[in-house]
């Protein structure tokens, strides 16, 4: 299923890009992220604890950055599995220069399998909520950084 959204981050594009290149910042802002370990260039192993609909699980998986065009575009591929099923997703972030602000357009294509499919109708809503938390956290970091 395809999901997408728009956010505004309150910092210039160069600074947003720099933050997106910082695995520590990404890890601390991703909801449920317990571990993010680099295993190669642009490749990470991740452990994520998430509740999707009625199904809570700990996902082990891989995150790979498949495209980066500084400071405009950033594409990732995620694969994770847990006892309750698997998630496969691709995501694209596009940053728009708006002077002191940066517009973020994000989109993703998500596949789930296993017990997760029971709640799959709720996944777009949950993904939007999680994305919202992620960007709010980034925005907070950007503002803290500039203060």
């Amino acid at each position, binding site marked *: *299923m395809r999901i997408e959204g728009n956010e505004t981050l309150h910092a210039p594009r160069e600074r947003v890009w720099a933050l997106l290149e910082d695995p520590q910042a990404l890890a601390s802002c991703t909801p449920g992220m317990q571990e993010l370990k680099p295993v190669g260039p642009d490749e990470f192993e991740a452990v994520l604890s998430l509740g999707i609909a009625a199904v809570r699980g700990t996902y082990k998986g891989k995150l790979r950055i498949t495209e980066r065009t500084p400071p405009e575009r950033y594409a990732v591929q995620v694969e994770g*599995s847990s*006892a309750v*099923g*698997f998630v*496969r997703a691709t995501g694209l972030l596009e940053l728009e220069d708006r002077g002191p602000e940066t517009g973020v357009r994000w989109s993703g294509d998500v*596949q*789930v*399998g*296993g*017990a997760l*499919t*029971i709640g*799959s*109708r709720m996944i777009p809503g949950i993904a939007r909520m999680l994305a919202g938390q992620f960007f709010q956290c980034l925005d907070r970091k950007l503002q803290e950084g500039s203060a």
Partner: protein
Amino acid sequence: MATRWFGAPVKRNEDPRLLTGQGLFVDDVQLPGMLHAAVLRSPHAHARVLRVDVRRAAEHPDVVLVLTHRDLPPGLREPLPKLIPHPDLKHHKTQYALASDKVRHVGEPVAFVVATSRYAAEDALDLIEVDYEPLPAVVDLEEAAAGRPALVHEDIGTNVAAHSVQRVGDYEAARARADLVLARRFVVDRGCASPIETRGVVASWDARTRQLTVWDSTQAPIPIRNGLASLFGLAQKDVRVIAPDVGGGFGPKIMMFYPEEVLVPLAAIRLGRPVKWIEDRREHFLATNHERTQIHDAELALDREGHILGVRTVFLHDAGAYIPYGLIVPIVAECTLPGPYRIPNYHAEFRAVFTNKTIVSPYRGAGRPHGVFVMERLLDLAARELSLDRAEIRRRNFIQPDEFPYHVGLLYQDNAPLVYDSGNYPAALERALEAVGYDRWPEEKARYRSEGRRVGLGFACYVEGSGIGPYEGCRVTVEPSGKVYVATGVGTQGQGHYTSLAQVVADALGVDVRNVHVVTGDTEAFGWGTGTFASRAAVVAGSAAHLAAQAVRQKALQVAASLLEASPEDLELSEDQVRVRGAPARAVSLAEVARAANPLRGVIPAEWEGPGLEATRYFAPPRGTFSHGVHAALVEVDPETATIRFLKYVVVHDCGVVLNPLILDGQIHGGVAQGIGGSFFERLVYDPQGQLLSGSFLDFQIPTAMEIPEIEVHHQETPSPLNPLGAKGAGEGGVIPVPAVLAQALEDALDDLDLEITQMPLHPDALFGLIQNAPRRRS
């Protein structure tokens, strides 16, 4: 003979036991030291299995056994048995007990864990690591037939398991001289039975006697026993399979083998301890067989008066990932399509196609709803085109009561010629039309419309193949207590056999039906039989019970004759007594006769053919018998919300001589409810990756008492000449025509729109889309 019980609305013998919680279902079986199993299932529709690592699961303190494909004995590493072969089934692929190098549908078993509790077994499943390499999922049926986007079974080079053609006459020639040819595509999508009781297996191995006992929620305990004996190298006599009370089967519980049916016994033998596995509802949606997806491209050729010249249907059948049950469903579909009509030229052609979805095998109706939907829809459209009354076009094409036996010209699912044995199709239609108020419908409909309500009338006719062979058997015993024991191997899934078979026997022996105790579904009680499927139990096992009871009756008369010093011809059996006709004082109880038939000393006359009041008989019908009927309904639709309500539902049903009208009504009520569910509320939705999105009762909505109307049932009785009872099957008639009835009723209710309903099941959102997209009809 006095017919007191046969045909009477006798209350069910089994109900006091079942209604007070005294039933014995597989999950009620508790054995000392019993272990519990859980199954690790594939989350992928199509993937290579690269690695299965069970080490951490095996180390779990409560786990006693973990099995993967490589841990199976050599015989069980092969695909499971092929059930029903057919010459057109070129690629008879069956599943493995545990996946070897590939998984082919979500829910396919990959590993099997046995632990001291189900809780621990489920926890251990989480510790198993499986590396899958996902492959493109084969989901869309037409794409699958073309070999895209992948092959479910690479080694056969195609996704088409079978291609089959049956012809009657010359359809092309009929088409060439037709005044009207209608061509449409009809789509019927997946459904499943949803019995209250899911599947379950308990197995126990006695190492001293080397005997295996298996409790299995199956519709076919004897074939399961025979198969297990063969797989485990045991004598059939050393395997006992008990299908105790079965909480609904509806077809999918007759698979043989589901993987768990061999894995649980294997674990029990290996561990020397009893093992239980009970399917949960989530597993049931994925791992118990589905049915119904077929895409029919159909044509009807007629003359201008509406006489059928010919029919053609070319269809795709979605077999799912494997095809253990062979071609039964598509064959039944093509053989049910002609229905009660004279069709001189018929071309039926299908391809059975593998997809990465749950396996398909018969589910109540089993292809019949598809055939009826296609035929009835074509007639409705033809009536519209020819400006003919929809009842009239059917009247012009009915096979008449004097045309039986009627040879349709096809081969049926039992590989025997399709021959209708008896029936009265025109009478059933007239009775249904009268009951639903067809004659005054135009005024009624206008009245509803004036109130702003949209109500439509729909009806549909069907012929229901039932009562096929090969055989069933029955043993009837009168014990020295005077109580009568009946044993058969047919099995039961809740249809009331403890009563209907008892009625057959009670009349023959002149005893109270409550003193006749039926045992079925236990291979130790009776070891020959095939199972309860295809609406055959009452017909085939009922006839065997009749023959066995008549034999016992003859013997009782012989034995009593010597006790009473009378001629057997002068005796009668009634009220547990054998009496001299016209001299009621000269009588002996059936119990005394039973004791006399098994003396401790003396001589048994040769004509008694052995001791005791007991006889075993088999009944093997030459071919199936054909029930028929008409359903008619009034359906109200709210075009704003696309929700529906049945205001009236009438069933005229002819299943030959009725054994028990109470049980028959129950069969029909349940069938109609299941038909309504499968037509409008329930649906199995797969995403493009082959994930089942509606795999819970949250999304798969079975109807409740709120959605099911009062059902008015009329019985018409045209006896079958093919069995001593004159009976025909009644298990599926409730379901079969419901989609066709609903489609016609909706089009009638929405007749200001140019609406054609060619897909089933509908759902409020599908119907809403049809309403929104339909152009207004030009009047």
